[in-house]
């Protein structure tokens, strides 16, 4: 019987190894100190090394375990959701909460091709206004509502 390795475990092991090595490499200039006076580098090194070892163990065991593949990545929803968040993050400072919520919703709704444009438009507008009211007016979170330089309405500033 041909043996197919467990790619989930191998992938996870590789990820842990990579993170552990990154910690070891990026923290290489941090002082280790000694047991009586541990430096800032002691923990990163210890945890990083442990993570590399554990990752290797997981990957090796995965190579011997029964097959189970990694299900396909759903790139479209992933990119739409993360892209929407990134767009929100970069637009909120210059453009304000209303515009960036609109942008987030429109991009986020690209996750599935079958979602209609009219619904997206209504939803985005409603969400922008509702979150603006909730966070800025009701909860008084100091978020800029309107683009930089636009005069804010005095009663919400």
């Amino acid at each position: 019987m041909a043996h197919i390795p467990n790619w989930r475990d191998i992938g996870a092991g590789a990820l842990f190894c990579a993170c552990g090595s990154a910690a070891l490499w990026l923290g290489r200039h941090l002082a280790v100190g000694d047991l009586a006076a541990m430096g800032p580098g002691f923990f990163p090194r210890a945890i990083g090394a442990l993570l590399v070892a554990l990752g290797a163990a997981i990957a090796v065991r995965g190579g011997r375990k029964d097959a189970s593949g990694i299900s396909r990545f759903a790139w479209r929803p992933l990119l739409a959701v993360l892209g929407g968040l990134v767009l929100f993050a970069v637009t909120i400072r210059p453009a304000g909460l209303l515009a960036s919520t609109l942008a987030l919703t429109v991009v986020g709704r690209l996750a599935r091709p079958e979602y209609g444009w009219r619904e997206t438009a209504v939803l985005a507008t409603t969400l922008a206004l509702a979150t603006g009211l909730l966070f800025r007016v009701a909860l008084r979170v100091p978020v800029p509502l309107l683009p930089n330089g636009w005069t804010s309405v005095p009663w919400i500033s």
Partner: protein
Amino acid sequence: MDLLNNLGLGLAVALTPVNVIYCLIGTALGTAVGVLPGLGPVATIALLLPLTYGLDPVTALIMLAGIYYGAQYGGSTASILLSLPGEISAVVTVLDGHQMARQGRAGDALLAAALGSFFAGCVATLMIATVAPMLPGIALKFGPAEYAALMALGLAAAVTLAHGSMLKALAMTLLGMLFGMVGTDVSSGAERFVFDVPELADGIDFVAVAMGLFGIAEIVRNLEGPTSDATAEFGCSTCHRVHWRLPRAEFRRAWPASLRGTAIGAFLGMLPGGGPVLSTFASYMLEKRISAEPQRFGRGAIEGVAGPESANNAAAQTSFIPLLTLGLPSNAVMALMIGALTLHGIQPGPQVMGSDPRLFWGLIASMWIGNLFLVILNLPMIGIWVRLLSLRYRLLYPTVLALCAIGAFSVGNSSATVLMTAFFGGLGYLLLKLHCDPAPLVVGFVLGPMLEENLRRAMTLARGDATLFFTRPISAALLLASVLLLTAAGNTARRPLRSAKVTTATPAGADKPAR
């Protein structure tokens, strides 16, 4: 009777109309921010702190405390319905609570959480009243070594509660600890993994980690299936049947779990550094351990909701004990409470109970009233929460996304938190694909820095002699408990694996159902 006198004094303070109204405001607000993903009690309390200047200190504390334990309550609602734990103490509730919702038992889960929390709140309040006056002596014995051992116990509990392989859970805990190291090292002031990004110097915000790993990753996963409209996911027809009473079989499972959860929470909450988070993990572990059918956990076991929900509510209340008796903050909210006290010119510390009994006992009595409010606020409104489920997912997810984004932004009023949320969302999705449970990562993230700080302090005090952890009785006992936990879980993890080969089920029996 001293106790009755003290509680009488407390009730006299807490039942004045002003205090009752502020207690109601606090608990209602707490429930709301607990349900709203992204805006947690820490942010809310921080925002409201300036508004309490004009209030009497007792009134201010009563309201702020109400926000805190109200949010524990509301957090369970968002966890169960949306798989969005706004607070780390609600992370465990997701495991079984959200599964129950998916199976159309959202009403049962919410009811179990509500009743468990109320019961725990009442018991914990009584417990504070009896225990607090004698606690200062015990808690003073907790040095850095004991704290470090306590953190180790918390991390061990996180590993054992995770789904699937224990090795993976252990690695996830370590990964979380690495993320927890990002920022300025508390002891030396050195910057670690900051890459000259000023936003990283203060460390990664917990909100970004939790929202990304649980909220965002879950949204993407829900959107990947062929039935994108999650009426299959959420809008199950039975959801609308909201019971005022739990079905008998569920109730019989839930009440002992709630009782045990209360005991665990009340005890762990008292320990400075323990608190609601640790108690939910410990309670879940215990329930899974003693259950006759541990395989039901992670698939909608009501004990997995009732136990941890009771535990976190009990712990949220008893965590006021170290604050009020010693002036020690056991978590971020308690640190803000210290800020609130000092704003009003009260020096937190062991003298508060004696010098300001109105404050101490008034606050405690108000917690009982607040718990009553929470039941009144939540039970008749369970229908509203459950009706949230019938929302089309294609309309619901952009709403959650927007709330997450704004919530993340409002934490530090900076876009960096939003970007970090996106990063952890992507990581969370990858980890889901690799069948790695994100819960231990979050625990490692929170407990890691505390472990490091206390370990370093303890080692410095002992001049590098590591045997100190085994010669001090409390720390030795805590470490022994961690080892026992890990070996016990290792044994149970191996057993189903062997039988699973026979039934050709997936080896990691409790993995999330592949969609």
